[in-house]
C-alpha cells in the first residue's frame, strides 16, 4: 500500500500534470490588429523567447503589415516563418522587420520560429 508521503507525491504529480497541460494548451488571449485608414492593418509583434501577442486577430480580405521586433539573442527566435503564406525572414536583434502580407482568406495561419518551437497564430476573421 502507498504510504502518506507517496499518496501526497502522486496527488501533487497529478495536479502538476494538469496544471502543465492547461498552462501550455489552455485558451489564450487574443489581440486584434489595429486598422489604419486606407492602408494595411498593423500588428506589432515582439519576439523575446516567445511571441507577444501570440494570438493575433486580423480582418480577412485586407492586407496586413506585421512589425516584428526581436529583442532576444537566442538562435531559436532568429527565423520567423509563416509557412502557409510562404514567408520566412531572418530577424536581426533589436531591429523592426516589417512583413507585408496580402489580404488573407478567413482561417488560421500559424507562425513559428525556424525550429518550430516558438509558436503563434494569425487568425483572419471577417
Amino acid at each position, binding site marked *: 500500500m*502507498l504510504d502518506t*508521503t*507517496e499518496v501526497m*507525491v*502522486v496527488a501533487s*504529480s*497529478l495536479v*502538476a*500534470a494538469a496544471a*502543465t*497541460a492547461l*498552462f*501550455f*494548451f*489552455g485558451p*489564450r488571449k487574443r489581440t486584434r490588429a489595429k486598422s489604419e485608414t486606407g492602408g494595411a492593418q*498593423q500588428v*506589432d509583434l515582439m519576439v*523575446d*523567447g*516567445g*511571441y*507577444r501577442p*501570440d494570438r493575433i486577430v486580423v480582418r480577412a480580405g485586407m492586407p496586413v503589415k506585421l*512589425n516584428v*521586433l526581436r*529583442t*532576444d*539573442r*537566442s*538562435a*531559436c527566435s532568429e*527565423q520567423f*516563418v509563416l*509557412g502557409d503564406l*510562404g*514567408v*520566412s*525572414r*531572418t530577424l*536581426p*536583434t*533589436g*531591429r*523592426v522587420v*516589417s512583413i507585408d502580407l496580402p489580404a488573407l482568406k478567413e482561417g488560421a495561419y500559424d507562425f*513559428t520560429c*525556424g*525550429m*518550430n*518551437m*516558438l*509558436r503563434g497564430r494569425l487568425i483572419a476573421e471577417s
Partner: protein
Amino acid sequence: MNAVETSPSLSGALERMDLAVSGMTCAACARRVERTLSEVEGVQECSVNFATRKASVVFDAKTTSVNALTEAVASAGYQAEVPKAEGSSEADSAEEKGLRRRLAVAVLFGLPVVVMAMSHGALDFPGSNWVQLLFTLPVIAYSGAPIFKAAWAALRHRSADMNVLVALGTGTAFLYSVVATQWPTLGASGEHAGHGDHGAALPVYFEAAAAVIGFVLLGRFLESRARTRAGDAIRRLQALAPANATVLRDGVEREVPLSQVRVGDEVVVRPGQSIPVDGSVVEGASSVDESMLTGESLPVEKSAGAEVFAGTMNSTGRLVFRAAKVGTDTALQQIVQVVERAQGTKAPIARLADVVSGVFTPVVLLIAIATFAAWFVLAPEETRLTMAVLNTVAVLVIACPCALGLATPAALMVGMGRGAQLGVLVKSAASLEGASHIDTVVLDKTGTLTQGRPAVVRIITSGDMTERDVLALTAAAESGSEHPLARAIVAEASARELKVAKPESFAATPGHGVEARVEGRTVFVGSRRMMERHGVSGSAEAERALTSDGQTPVLVAVDGKWVGAIGIADPEREEAASAVQSLRSMGMHVVMLTGDHEGPASRVARALGIDRVFAGVLPEGKAHVVRTLQAEGRKVAMVGDGINDAPALAQADLGVAMGTGTDVARDAAGVALLRSDLRGLPAALGLARSTMGVIRQNLFWAFLYNALGIPVAAGLLYTMTGWLLSPMLASLAMSLSSVSVLLNSLRLRSLRLPAAQPVA
C-alpha cells in the same frame, strides 16, 4: 534593408537614416527621443515610431554625424544604433565570444565538482558538499544564466523550448542537492533515518547540474559554428556586391555607399572590381566573370548595350554602365531572397516532425512528472527521493526538440545554398521534395536540346563544283533574304571566311526559293519545286539523303544545272548529349517534346540517346503530353522557358525553368536553372535527391534518438537490466544529437555534382 538611404527628393549633403532606438517604454519616451534628435544641429526632419522602435532622421551630413545623433539619444537616457545589416556576422561572433566565456567558467568550476563526485567518497571530507555547492554556484548563476533567462521568457509566453527543459532539469538537480546538503537526512524519514550517520545521508548531485550546463553550452557552441557554416553559401552570395560604388555625377567620379546608388546613375567599374548594381553598359568593353551568379565558368564579353549584374566580377577593361536595378531589386538580391524564402518553407516530409516538435516540450514535462511519481512510489524507501530526482532530471535533459526541429531546416539551408552556388535555384522545400521523386524528364527540343536556330550541317555537291564554291555562290544569292534558312547559309559562309560576291539581281518566290545573278551566272536556290519549275534535274538522290537524316535540303543550280544540296538542321547543343547521358544514368526516362516533324525530331533523339519522342505537338498540347505520362504512373519533370510553357510546367510534378538567367523571381516553376545549360537539370535532380536523403536521415535519427532516449532516461530498462542513465550522460547525448544533425547536413556543402561541372 539598407541602413542609409538617400531619398531622391533630397539634395546636396542631406541624408536620411534610420536608427534603432531601444529603452523606450511608452509613447512619451518616443516623443522625448524625437525632441532630442530635432534639437541636434543639422537635423532637418525627425520622426520616431514607438511601435517599430525606429527613429527616421534627415540631417545635413556636413554639420552633424551619426555619432552626434546616437550621443544625443544616449544623453536622453536611451540607446540608438545604426541597425546592423541583416544576418550580421558581427553580432554572431560577439555571441560566440560570450558563449566561449561562459563555457570556460563552466569547465573551470564544474570540473572539480565532477571529479569530487566521481571519486566515490575518496575525496570526501567534512563539509565537502558545501565546497561542491560553492563551485557549482558560478556555473549555474553565470554560465547557465542565458538558459534560465530564455526559459523564463518562454514560460512567460506559455511556450516551452529546450531551455525550459534544461533549466528545469539543472534547477531541480541543484535545488535538491542544496536541500540534501543542508538537511542530509531528510529523505530517509521515520524509523529508517540515520540520525547524522554518514552512510544514510542523502547523496548530492551538484556534478549533474554543473555538467549538464557545461555540455549544453558546449553543444550550443559547436552548433553555432556549424550553423554559421550552414548559412555560408548565402552569406557569400550576399557579400559579392561591393560596399561602395563609383558613380559619375556631373562628369566627376565619386565614391558613394552602395545604398546611395540610384536608378539612372552612371556607374564606373575598373578591372578587378566587382559590379555593384544591375545595369546596361554605356561605355567601354570588358569581359565579366558571372560564374558566381550563374555557375557559367567562361567570362562573358560585355560592351555597350550589354547587361551587367551586381556581384559579378569585371576582369579586363573599364566599364561605365547605367544603373537599372539597385538595392533589393538586383538579380543577386533576388536570388538571395528566393533562396532565403525557400529555406524557410516546409517540406511535406517534415510535417510529422512539425506536429511533434510543437507539443514536444510540454509532453516531455508531463513524462518527467510521471517519472518522478513512478520512481517515488516504486523505488525502495531509502532511495526513492534520489532515484526520483535523478531520473526526472535525466528525462528533462535528454529530450532534444532541437534535433527534431533542426533536421529539415538545416539540410534545406545547406542543400539550397549549395544549389545556388551551382546555378540551381530551388523555390521551395516542397519543390525539392517533388524533385527527389522525379523519374521522367520531358525536354523541349528547340532551344533546350538544340540551339534553336538552323545551321548548315552538310553539303553534297554534284562533283562539278567544290563545296566552298557551292556555298559561296548560294550565300551570295541568299545574301538579301531574311529567311532563316538563307541566314544559316550566309552565316556558314562567313564562318568559313568565304568571299561572298554581291548579287547583280535578286528575286524571291515565296515557298519556292530565290533566283539571282551572281558574277554573271544565274543561280537558283530553293526546294525541288523550284528546280522542277526551271527544268533542273539530278538532285533527287542528294535530297533523299538529307531528308532521311532529318535535314532540310536546300538545292542549288547554276546556269540551269544542279550543282549541290545544302542540308540544314537545328544542331544539338554541345552539352545536351552529356546531360541526357547523366539523366539516364540516374535512371530517368528521358522524353523529347517538339512541334517539329517526326524526321528532324527522331534525328535529334537518335543523336542524343533519348528514349521517347512526341513530335508535332502544338504549344497547347504540351500539358496534355505531361498528363499522358502522368497517367502511366510517372513523376514528370518538365523543362521549359518558364513563360510560354506555363500550363505544362504547372501540370508537371516539377516545373523547371531553364536559362531564366537572372530573372529568377518571375516564373512559377519550382526549380530555376540560372544558366542556359541542360546539365543543370541532372545537377538539380541530384541535389534534390541528396538533400532529401539527408533530411530523411536527420528525421530518422532525431525521432529514434528521442523515442529511445526518453524511455531509457526515465529508467524503463532498470526493471530488466538494472540500467539507469546518469543526467550527465543524458546531457552529453542531448548536446551531441543536435550537433550530429547539423554535421550530417553540412555534408551537402561538398556535394559533387559531376553534371554541373563545366565542359573541359
